């Protein structure tokens, strides 16, 4: 009974996790929900687990539940992998925005520099206007 309650709690947690994953990775949400619901069913209707286990060539119903748990773990790992990819997407967008902003900034800085360039040789360069000095 204790094992049943513990597995029920864990599988309920997986169901909640699957629901939250469904928004970003629908396939993981669907598969994890299916596996968790199957697990919950077999935890409480063990004779069906034993019958199905015998049918598919697994020794005991409890082994079937362990296998289901392994499948859920693999799905969670896949979900984590996909979440890392989503994070990389966000990092990419951030890095792109930073890179483009910096390039535009250096282009803007380069324009006044080019404007100041013409200086008559043999004459002292005139001081730049006060407002551009203030910007620096």
């Amino acid at each position, binding site marked *: 009974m204790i094992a049943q309650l513990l597995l029920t709690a864990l599988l309920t947690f997986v169901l909640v996790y699957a629901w939250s994953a469904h928004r970003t990775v629908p396939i993981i949400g669907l598969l994890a929900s299916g596996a968790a619901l199957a697990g919950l069913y077999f935890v409480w209707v063990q004779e069906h687990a034993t019958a199905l286990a015998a049918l598919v060539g697994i020794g005991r119903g409890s082994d079937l539940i362990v296998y289901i748990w392994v499948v859920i773990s693999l799905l969670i790992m896949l979900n984590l992998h*996909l979440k890392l990819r989503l994070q990389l997407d966000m990092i990419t967008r951030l890095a*792109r925005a930073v890179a*483009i902003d910096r*390039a*535009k900034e250096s282009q803007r800085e380069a324009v006044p520099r080019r404007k100041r360039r013409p200086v008559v040789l043999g004459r002292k360069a005139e001081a730049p206007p006060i407002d551009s000095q203030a910007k620096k």
Partner: protein
Amino acid sequence: MTGRIRNPWVVVAAYNEAPVVGSVVSGIRRAGYAVVVVDDGSGDRTGDVASLAGAVVVRHPINLGQGAALQTGIDYALEQRADALVTFDADGQHSPAAIPALLAAIEQPGIDFALGSRFLTGATANLPMSRRLLLSAALWFTRANTGLPVTDTHNGLRAMTARGARAISLRQNRMAHASEILHQIAQSRLRFVEVPVNIEYSAYSLGKGQRITDALTILIDLFARRLYR
């Protein structure tokens, strides 16, 4: 630059290409085109060399991959009101002489993409047999996946109108972006043509190019991308 294209930009994604990027940019500049080089977090002087050669340099703070760099260059060029964009490799295997033909192709009414093809002329030099087999497999996969009757895939030399560039949004950071572009072209229902181009493989460019093991990574990237939004 005749016809309706007034402001074409060439986008070059570069990662640790300091030995060659200067001559690549100089060649493009001599041909009369504006160039944006996206320095993808290089550890060498790629950005500085490109800048000295006359390119606008956009620097990724970290290395993200060629696909990410191309999208950054496309975004930057569109912000500069580019009306046509050409993607061009940084390793020196493309020739600026191919650019006018690509631009001429997208000047035709209703055409938004011109894709360079190595296999339309058969004049591509020094293509090793292993690379040819790899490209054939990629071509078969791309045709099956996108339904586009292309003759070349993973060719970095291509041109697009501003409308075409806005229709694609690369989310494949690494090499799978070449397949992703074709997939997005197919989805956008915009029209494309293929233009024969010559690719000059050198020891340098072959050393930097894709290997057979990269094909597996590309397949994994493409599959994983379909699993999430």
